């Protein structure tokens, strides 16, 4: 399938560990916010106001910038019914859209299968991280997992000396000559050669990249830069995935949350600037989610697992603004001490699938969910 330059691209940034909703989008005028958070609430003088009700901590300054440009959609109260509040299970639910039983097919795995059913492009999906996120998992669907730096992605990264590496990889590809009819050996041959090809293609992306933008020197900064490099190389990649964390701030929340979001915001700032300067921003949106929000009341040092959270979508074609309402902080309206979700995450997925990727959302998210109009 020929890579069409302006095919819509989705970048997913997973905030692993449960990002604290109330300290990310702060209801600074609501007295219940400070009443419940004697230790971890963000001080008034450290809040950048979005409007009269909500603000973001100063360490989300670049996000505030996207807000002012009208390119940041803030989804309030996101979750699903009966959250188990456990990392694994919650993340699985976000990844597989199966809330009632254990699912094994990732929603993005299904997307890739839709986009590229004949596996013509082995790098339709590229994930930055050592393991295959369940969101991308689907039998038969190849995903390139870039565990280390993009420049050394490929087989036998321990052999880096140029001529030796070339010799060894040539040897590798000769050893993997497919023998038709040899069953699993043939399957491995095609898989190995596909991988090698994918690696060759991907590895060339940094070499073709040239930019004035400086990314922050952090893990998320490097991942976002890698995404930009692959995107600019026009290799036909439609889905990018990476994660950042750990947001599981049970203890010592304030400095930790600040440093995580500082790294992320600065990374996103550089990323969007890079995309814009190369005129490659129009067909990209960024989805930022976490598996749950955190408790309303702090535990004296941090916050524990909660339910409803906040999800962000950023992009040139995003209609910025608030979507949905922050669930009430009043004690009688909480569910077991947590904010009651009032927006199903599958609605956000559905809008992205339907209005951005132009794919029927229903079989992917296992149902029909209300779509909000955050995409132009």
């Amino acid at each position, binding site marked *: 399938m020929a890579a069409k330059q302006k095919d819509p691209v989705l970048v997913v940034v997973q905030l692993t560990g449960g990002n604290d909703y109330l300290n990310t989008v702060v209801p600074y005028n609501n007295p219940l916010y400070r009443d419940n958070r004697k230790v971890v609430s963000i001080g008034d003088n450290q809040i950048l106001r979005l409007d009269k009700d909500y603000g973001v901590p100063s360490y989300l300054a670049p996000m505030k910038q996207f807000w002012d440009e009208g390119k940041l959609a803030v989804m309030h109260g996101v979750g699903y019914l009966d959250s188990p509040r456990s990392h694994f299970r919650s993340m699985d639910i976000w990844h597989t859209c199966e809330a009632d039983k254990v699912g094994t097919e990732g929603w993005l795995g299904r997307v890739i299968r839709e986009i590229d059913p004949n596996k013509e492009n082995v790098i339709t999906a590229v994930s930055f991280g050592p393991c295959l996120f369940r969101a991308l998992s689907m039998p038969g669907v190849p995903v390139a997992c870039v565990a280390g730096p993009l420049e050394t992605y490929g087989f036998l990264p321990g052999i880096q000396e140029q001529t030796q590496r070339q010799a060894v990889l040539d040897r590798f590809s000769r050893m993997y000559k497919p023998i038709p009819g040899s069953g699993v050996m043939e399957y491995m041959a095609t898989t190995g050669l596909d991988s090698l090809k994918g690696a060759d293609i991907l590895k060339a992306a940094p070499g073709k990249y040239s930019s004035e933008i400086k990314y922050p020197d952090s893990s998320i900064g490097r991942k976002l830069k890698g995404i930009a490099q692959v995107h600019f190389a026009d290799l036909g990649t439609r889905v990018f995935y990476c994660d950042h964390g750990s947001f599981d701030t*049970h*203890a*010592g929340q304030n400095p930790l949350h600040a440093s995580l979001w500082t790294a992320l915001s600065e990374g996103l700032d550089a990323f969007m600037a890079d995309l814009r300067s190369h005129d490659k921003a129009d067909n990209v949106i960024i989805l930022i989610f976490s598996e749950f929000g955190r*408790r309303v009341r*702090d*535990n*004296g*040092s941090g916050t*524990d697992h909660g339910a409803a959270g906040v999800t962000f979508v950023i992009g040139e074609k995003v209609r910025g603004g608030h979507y949905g309402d922050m669930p009430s902080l009043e004690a009688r309206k909480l569910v*077991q001490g947590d904010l009651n979700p009032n927006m199903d995450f599958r609605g956000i997925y559905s809008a992205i699938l339907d209005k951005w990727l132009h794919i029927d959302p229903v079989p992917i998210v296992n149902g029909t969910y209300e779509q909000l109009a955050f995409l132009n």
Partner: protein
Amino acid sequence: MALQTYIKGRAYDWSHAIGRAAANGTGFNYPQTMCLGNDGDIYVANRGNENTFAMRVNRVKIGGPGEEELLAEFFTYGEADGQSVWPFGVAVDKNGNVYATDEWTNTVSVFDAGGKFIRKWGTPGSDPGELRNPAGIICEPNGNVILVDSGNDRLQVFTPEGKVVAQWGKSGSGEGEFNKPWGITLDNEGNIYVADWKNHRVQKLSASGKFVMSIGRYGTLPVPENAFAVTYLGPFLSHGDPPGYPQGGLLNHPTDVAVDPDGDIYVADWGNHRVCIFDQEGKPLTNLVGDAQVMSKWGQQSIDANPDMMKAYRRARNQEPLWRFCFPTAVDFDPKTDRIIVADSQRNRLQIYQKVRDYIEFQANL
């Protein structure tokens, strides 16, 4: 199990617990050893883990129940000076300086009373002055430190600047020999007590390192039918399980020892989940098994932030596992307050007992 244990003229009254599981801040992350400070405080060396990398030494003020405060946190995870990979031992000298050992980098780091890094020493090896898996450490009144050089199965004495003065002991199970020893303490006369971990005993040595006495021998509970080695947390009792503890005086991988001014010896009997108390001749007296029936202050903060928790506690039929020690790694006796402090390591809390003298139970309480 009563909150107060009374035996042979001693009475032990459970006072309160301090702590909760926390990657930093108000709580602990697998205490490995601890050492009383000079000012009603205690230093705890936390081993941490490879998920949150919560390695550190923290300094906690101990008062009455609920009066604890976190005073300092240092020796956190990292490779730079003042940071740690596998924190193990911690000791305080009379000036308030803190010595902490790192079992992986084979070093001893020195901090001032405020937690500021001063210096470190240590190179891996078995020659005099070299270290292999240093564990517990204690400061002598003269300023020297005695270090449990665990991987070399010996003790080494250093000046505060790290110049080696003496080595005592070698591998083995005989008198004055060690097998992967863990914790160390001194009594009022300068005698040295070492928890000889894989020899399942405590050894008492003179101030010049000569063997004096061996305390305890190996013994453990048979593993109950429906519990398995990996998570056997015994002896917590639940309906139907065989109750009881190993006979007094039997130890399973003891990790630490403390001595009080009366000469009583407290041994952290790690693998048997208890503190064994011996008299000064080494005769077993009784055991402490953990009695934390009241939530600690910081623990209560977690409960308060999670309202469904209280309900969850009430639903459990048997609260007893909550009270009991789970692999207690360290024990200290504070002569200023007559308190026994136990690091209940797997539960990330300290349990504090009062050694009660002249206690009379009120008629109204009987």
